[in-house]
């Protein structure tokens, strides 16, 4: 869940602006540089492919859909396959709507994984590294055209559940978000933008995981 929200918050769009690579492919990347590039003001949208693993499932669930960010306070997650479902996140609450059912409301504060994003949501979209650092310690490595940024939660409640969140990207394109739980059992992955398009043709779960890391695309 967290990766999907982060994805929406960041709303990576397609295309790699030429100027973002101007500093040269080998230059070491800085967190501030990344945040500046991946900030996206509303309105914006991006497709996603999410892999959701669980001990109860035979294999991870593959969910395809689109994130929309219609205005600064609202985030919509629309699932198109393998079922349809629309989640609207606004005012600290997620409203989940499914065909033929009354909407279900979930308070973000009841789920530590969501509470963290609630506070950093605005900061992400605004590219406000200072605010984001209040909630996570940031660490970036790689080059500008193939970077990796690791977020370690500062909030104790969130840190009980989540070890870290790893963002993968190229230039201004955020391509994948990995959430590593504390017990490292089931890493949840959300592929975004170009990576989501690449994923459309791949069925194999291991190949999708590799796509997230960026290896398969290279």
């Amino acid at each position, binding site marked *: 869940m967290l990766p999907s929200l982060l994805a929406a918050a960041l709303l990576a769009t397609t295309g790699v602006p030429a100027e973002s690579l101007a500093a040269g492919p080998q230059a070491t990347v800085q967190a501030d540089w990344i945040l500046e590039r991946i900030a996206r003001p509303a309105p914006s949208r991006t497709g996603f492919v999410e892999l959701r693993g*669980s001990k109860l499932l035979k294999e991870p669930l593959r969910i395809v859909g689109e994130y929309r960010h219609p205005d600064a306070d609202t985030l919509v997650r629309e699932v198109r396959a393998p079922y349809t479902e629309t*989640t609207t996140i606004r005012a600290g*609450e997620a409203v989940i709507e*499914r065909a033929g059912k009354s909407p279900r409301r979930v308070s973000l504060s009841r789920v530590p994984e969501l509470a963290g994003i609630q506070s950093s949501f605005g900061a992400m979209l605004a590219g406000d590294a200072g605010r984001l650092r209040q909630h996570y310690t940031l660490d970036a490595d790689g080059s500008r055209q193939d970077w990796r940024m690791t977020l370690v939660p500062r909030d104790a409640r969130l840190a009980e559940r989540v070890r870290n969140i790893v963002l993968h990207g190229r230039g201004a394109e955020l391509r994948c978000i990995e959430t590593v739980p504390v017990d490292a059992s089931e890493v949840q992955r959300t592929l975004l933008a170009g990576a989501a398009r690449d994923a459309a043709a791949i069925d194999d779960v291991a190949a999708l995981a590799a796509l997230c890391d960026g290896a398969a695309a290279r």
Partner: protein
Amino acid sequence: MSARKRLLLALAWLAVLLLGAWALSGRLQLSGDLRKFMPEPRTPAQQLLIEELGEGPGSRLLLLGISGADPGTLARQSQALREALADAPQLRLFANGSGGGFDAIPERLRPYRYLLTDSARLDDPGYLRAQLEARVQDLGSPAAALVEPLLASDPTLATLALAEAWQPATTPQHLYGVWFDRAGANALLLAQTRAAGFDPDGQQAAMDAIDAAFARVRGDTTTRLAVTGPGAFSVDVAERTRREASWIGSVDTIALVLLLWLAYRSWKIPLLGVLPLASAGLAGLGAVAIGFPGGVHGITVAFGFTLIGVVQDYPIHLFSHQRAGLDPRASARGLWPTLATGLVATCIAYLTFFAAGVDGLRQLAVFTIAGLATAALATRFLLPSLLDPAPRDAAGSASLARLWTRIERLPRPRKAFAVLAAVALAVVVLAPGPFWQNDLSRLTPVAEDALRTDARLRDELGAPDVRYVVVSPGAGAEQALQGVERLRPVLDVLVERGAIAGYDSAVRYLPSMAVQRARQAQLPDTQALRAALDEALADSPFRADAFDPFVADVAAAKAAAPLQVGDLAGTPLAAAVDGLLLQREGHATALVSLHGIGDAQEVARTVHANGATLLDLKQASESLVADYRSRVLFALGLAALLLAATVWIALRDRRRALRVLVPMALSTLLVLAVLRGCGVELNLFHLVALVLGAGLGLDYALFFEHAGDDRDEQLRTLHEVIVCSLTTLLVFSLLALSSIPVLRAIGSTVALAVVANFVFALFIARAPMRRSA
């Protein structure tokens, strides 16, 4: 005895009183329980009101709203307040809409979800398959983290269904996970106090806990907390009454000291004047503390101190008659028959309160009789030794003499008095408007804006009505719960028709054992469940063994003994059920709280036809008040007769007795007429004040009558009665200015009575003296 020694003795007396007060304060158990002041209930509604007064779900409820910041901040403070108060001993429940309610179900009771909710279709593979498909979606949704831990044992999410069923019938909107009003300006919270609604101390403790927690949560933000509800109101009114009574008391004390100093030109007189009164109060309290170890009612103390106000006059009689050459002891001896007549007559009158059959009134009688007797005896035997033997003689005052000469020239308008009495009687009988005020709440009115806030919060939160409640009686909890279960379809129809907006009952949390057993019988056994589950799991993304804990839970539910009230002890559910299911020795009563009542009569008819009763708590309390008052009136009627007889016997002369009694009776009638004429609806406090007024009048008349034909004695009597009536008038006029109706009722009535009694005593009681002089 030297002046110095006398002063030392007076100070020693004061010290003894202070010591006594200190010793008593530890022993005195003040009770605010209104029930002690009520008569025995007669109707079933009264019975329930008295038994459950303040115990009903509505009266324990506090409604809270936090405002004054953006919704995010308000929500954070709402959460922080809930965390701070979750374990507060003063509160049984504190809710702000957060928390799904799984936390409400302790682990050991979780299998019971299949008995507490309708779960008839667990053996249907089609149903199970649909449920599993929905769970796959849940795992891919933002609710995944919330749902995943439950799934293995609860794939149909019965836990969630239960938690939703336990939410209030109409919940306010959620913002940032907590309740908000429709405008999003107030974070809403609900608290249920442990103390009963009419336990002012318990309510005060709950309010203090909430205020303290909010002060911490609020920090340096500018948010505000509004708390309404019966408990909050009673605390507010008590606080306002205390505040007003306190400033009035302070002003009274200063004015009284000044007045006494002015009347006697001695700074020692105020000290001596207060000693009998203080002794009376202490003796009264001590007597009730010993006689009623169960606790002294707060109202007893309030009424009692009003009634013993008359003893303030006792030392004044002594002071005004003191002059050079007269031994104070001899003076006291001379005054004693008159003082004693008034005392004995009044005490005999108060004895009738014993017959009223109400604990609170018995306490009042003990308090007053002990107080009056102590003050009188202190004035007779202790005070004379402390008196300055040669003060200024009141009879030596030229202005007083001129006043008396003028008074003596006044006519004796007997006919005019007869006409006045007739007119007053006519006004009393014929004045429009209700005679009595039965609505207890009108005595302690809540500020308009607080009522508006309450109505708004009540509407937003869908909080239960405080006036109406449906009761389903039974021999035990099971029967009472079954009664409510039979009632539910009927109530649902009432909701549909708009007669009520919603209702709440204990069966929402705890169905009767009969219903639980029926559900149990419908649960599939392990084999059938396993078969259905395997079929549903056949080509699902879930592992085949994913739901083994579910199978175990259903088996546990099928074998479990039905859940009963006692099993809930220590869980948050116990609070919800206890408030709606009242268990007593030999019987139980299930309450159905209502909210948004559109048509009370239709509700009453409908539930009555289904074996339950709509209880109108307001009507029940009003009938109780009326019942109570009729007992007090009976006691007072008897008291009046006894008082007249006592005076008659003491004075041994019909004409003298009449001269003493007529001013008092006339004054009482006139005061009643003035109150009625002004459209005042009378209440118990007016009655008590009238009794005090009559007691004062009796003393004035007795002393005027006693003055005889010695001119100096007449002047001294005039002086004492003027001082007496002025001090009393001063004290009670200030009280009449109060904004609290209770204080105003006592103040205005007594002030009027003092003036009327003084005038009539002057005209009637002294009349024959003029002729003989």
